Each structure stands twice: as structure tokens, then as C-alpha cells.
């Protein structure tokens, strides 16, 4: 087994009175794709969003337990959330380009990090768009509005925007759920490429997708981590009855 990039220990999360995550302990290996599956409301997205402390934004959330990334507890009082998020990219369910040009979208992250040199920005934008397999499609219209791109292109541009900040971990929250099959295939291909350099965690509704892209799979149900292991094992010989029921489509 590879090195673990993220380890959580007894992670419990409440929205007000309601428990959303119950004592989750999980190790996520470096430079692999880990997929979270489970029925909606099972806590997989909530768990994903604790990994870059996105849940900080929601009032009345209380969290206990630990999330260690490279051995650093990210809930430590000394930790700077802003810097943390620079190292953990996130791609959202609905593509969310800013109402700016493609160039400015991708350059947004570097700019807020203080990079203002034009050529440097151009380099970063080009490299990022190439990594996200979208350079060829947009290179002639970098200064057009990003809102003019198709859904699939928008999502890949959002991935490029994330890569431009040079994260080590990329969190994807159902990145292809709103896309057509062709765009979905492109995103999956992209994920496959990216795992060479990045640790990827992906939440998905689509079990075929999890089977296709991930190396490890975690099954969540009602805020609990039911089972976690190699994707092949989870999909062929799961240990738990619940996992099997879900995978074979008996509920969900």
C-alpha cells in the first residue's frame, strides 16, 4: 500500500442538533483516486467538504475528531484556512465559472496569490488548460467570457482553474453529474491523467463511474463509513451486506 495523504480519526460532524457524520476514520492514499459512494444524504459530500474546511462557512456546524493531512491536523487552531485551501483544490457539482473571461478565470487563483506578471500568468494559464485537456478548444478565445463555454468545457475549465493554484489534493464533488456522456467521458479521462500527480477524492452518485475511475472506494450510509477498500474488492466481494445491496442496486 502507498503512503497515506489524508487520515481522518473519529471525525464527527453536527449540523446544529443533527448528526451528519458519525465517527469516521479513513486513510486516503497519495496519488490515487478515492471514490465516495452512497445514497444522497449519506454524508459523503459533507465529509468531502470537511477535508478543505469548506463547512466552516456554514453556521452551526460543530466538528470533533481529526483530519490529518501529511500529519498536520487541519483543525488545529494554528492552521490558516486560506493557505490550506490553496493546497487542496475543489471542483464542484455544478460548474461555477466566474463571470469573467476564460483567461481571468484560470488566472484568478495565481492573481490572488500575488502573481501579476503578464507572461508568468500566461504560462500558468496555458499549462493549466493543457493539463485539463481543454487548451486546444479554447486557445483562440481565451478572452471570451467563460459563460459562453458548454457545460463540459466549463467543468474542465474549472478543473484548470483549480490546477492553476498548484494544489496537491483535488476534491471533486460529483463533477460530472450535470454533464452528457461524452463530456463525462472526457472528465473521467482527465481524472485518470491527473492522478499521476495529484491525490484525488471524488464523490459520485454513479457507481459505474466509481468503478471506472477510482482505485479505492468508500461506501457511506446515514453518516457512517460502512466500508472502505480497493475498488475492485468493494465491487466484487464486499464485506458488508449493506454495501452489496447498494452496489447491486437493491436500494439507493
Amino acid at each position: 500500500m502507498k503512503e497515506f495523504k489524508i487520515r481522518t480519526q473519529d471525525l464527527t460532524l453536527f449540523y446544529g442538533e443533527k448528526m451528519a457524520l458519525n465517527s469516521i476514520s479513513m486513510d486516503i492514499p497519495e496519488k490515487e483516486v478515492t471514490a465516495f459512494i452512497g445514497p444522497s444524504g449519506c454524508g459523503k459530500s459533507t465529509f468531502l467538504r470537511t477535508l478543505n474546511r469548506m463547512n466552516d462557512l456554514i453556521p452551526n456546524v460543530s466538528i470533533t475528531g481529526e483530519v490529518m493531512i501529511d500529519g498536520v491536523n487541519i483543525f488545529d487552531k494554528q492552521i490558516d484556512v486560506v493557505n490550506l485551501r490553496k493546497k487542496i483544490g475543489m471542483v464542484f457539482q455544478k460548474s461555477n465559472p466566474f463571470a469573467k473571461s476564460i483567461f481571468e478565470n484560470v488566472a484568478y487563483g495565481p492573481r490572488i496569490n500575488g502573481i501579476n506578471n503578464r507572461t508568468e500568468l500566461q504560462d500558468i494559464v496555458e499549462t493549466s488548460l493543457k493539463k485539463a485537456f481543454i487548451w486546444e478548444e479554447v486557445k483562440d478565445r481565451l478572452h471570451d467570457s467563460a459563460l459562453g463555454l458548454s457545460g463540459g468545457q466549463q467543468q474542465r475549465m474549472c478543473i484548470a482553474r483549480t490546477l492553476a493554484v498548484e494544489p496537491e489534493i483535488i476534491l471533486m464533488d460529483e463533477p460530472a453529474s450535470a454533464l452528457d456522456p461524452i463530456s463525462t467521458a472526457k472528465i473521467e479521462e482527465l481524472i485518470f491523467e491527473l492522478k499521476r500527480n495529484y491525490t484525488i477524492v471524488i464523490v459520485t452518485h454513479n457507481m459505474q463511474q466509481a468503478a471506472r475511475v477510482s482505485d479505492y472506494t468508500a461506501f457511506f450510509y446515514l453518516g457512517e463509513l460502512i466500508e472502505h477498500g480497493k475498488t475492485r474488492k468493494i465491487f466484487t466481494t464486499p464485506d458488508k451486506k449493506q454495501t452489496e445491496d447498494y452496489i447491486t442496486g437493491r436500494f439507493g
Partner: protein
Amino acid sequence: MKKGNRKRIIGGIFTGATGVSAFLIIAIIILILVVIILGGKETFSWEFLTAFPEDGMLKGGIFPAIYGTAMLVLIMSVAAVPFGTLTAIYLTEYAGEKSVLAQTIRFAVRTLATVPSIIFGLFGLGFFIRFVGTGMDTVFLGGELKWGQPNILWASLTMALLTLPVVIVSVEEAIRAVPRELREASLALGATKWQTIRNIVIPGSFSGILTGTILAVSRGAGEVAPILFTGAAYYLATLPASLSDQFMNLGYHIYILSTQSSNVDQTLPIQFATTLVLLLLTFVLNFTAVIIRSGIRKRRAK
């Protein structure tokens, strides 16, 4: 059977009454518009808009009043828009939904919106002129009277207080229409809260800030009570050249000509035309704001 009939009649009367009421309001609006347009259209001309009054305001145009109103709303906007925008940002981005402070601020804003405009005039007189102005004169000018009297600056600031709630409400609505996903995208890229507000939230609510400004300008252009004794002048031979000058104003001009003119009947066409100008001005401004705002609401509904 008879009972059913009676019911139907009551229903008809009731429904009819609601309809008649609605149409009565519309009819009054149309009537006011028609009367003022008909009364003012003869005098209304380019000449009228650009000339100074003559013969003790019995003849001539209303340029100084237009100019004074424009300066008033300009200075007012410079004061009200940034403050209103920042307050709206505080309420939407910084304050917790249920924080006592935010609730108090909201209550204060709503109260401010219902304070009678004449009270703002009193406040302008008591605070800006008698306290701040006189204080400035004493400290900087050794008691020489310059700021401790009505002028366009104090009138504009008084008007800014009055229009502050208008700006706050519009901007707040627009900020809430900025999708949460965009804020999250920015934060996930490692932007700080302020960077996100500056780069995403403020540009995203630009149309709301614009609407708020337009509505505030429209309100400020039409209000007369707050400037009655904070800076508006009956007649001035010159345009205001500095912040310590008094100014003429469209609404005040209408009031003066229709109630205190030496010859009310002779100036009647001028009065109608001035009213027409003011009405057109507020009409166009409000209409623009309504259009922009419906755009925001549509975007928000998506």
C-alpha cells in the same frame, strides 16, 4: 335558490369593488400624468431647460434648479452609495443571520426608511449646520461664519442619510443573488474573504449597486422637505461654485413658485413645466431601476 342569488350578488359587488379600487388608482396615476404633461408641454423646451430664470422668476428657464438638483444628488450619491454598499456587505457577508448586531442594524435601517423627511431636515440643521458647521467655523476659521449656515454640502449629506436605506436594501438584494457556488469557488481557490468579496461579490452585485444608486438619486431629486432649511435657495443669480454655496432645486422651485411667487397665475406654465421635468426625471430613473431589478430577480430565480 334565492339565497344562492344573494350570495352571487354579494360576491359580484365585492369582486367588483376590488377591481374598481385597483382601476381607480391606475386612473389617478394616469390623470396626474396627463394633467401635468398637458399643462407643461407648451413651456417645456430646450430653451426652458438651459436658461436662467428672468424677471423675478416670472419668466425664463430653470437651468440653475436642474444644475442644483444634479449637484445635490451627485454629492449625495458619493456619500450614500459607498456607505450603503458597505453596510449591505456587512449584513450579507459578515454578520451572522441571527446576530443581535445585525438585527439591530436591520431595525435601524428600516426605521431610517420611515423617519419623516422633515426630521432629516431638522437633523441636518441641528447636526450638520449647528454642530459640525459651527464647530468647523470655530476651530478653523476663528468664528467666521462659513460652514455654520445652510449650503449644498449639508443638504446633500442630509439627503444621503435619507437615501441610505434605499441603497442598502437594493445592494443587499443583489448580493444575495450572487450564487453561493461562486463564493465557494473563490474560497476553494484559496482566496480570503475580502478577496472574494472584492473580486466576486461586488462585481457580481454591480447591477444592484447601480439600481440602488438610481433609486436613491430618484428619491433625492424629488424630496424637498430635508433641504428646506439645509441649503436650498429661493433664487440665485449664479450657480453654486463651492460646497459652501447654497443652491436651487427643482422640487423647491415648484414649491416656491406655486405657493410664494409674486404672481402665481402668471408662472403657472413654468410651474407645470418644472413639475413635468421633475416627474420625467424620477419616472425615467425609476423605470430604469425597475428594469435592471427585474433582471436581477430573474437571475436569482434561476
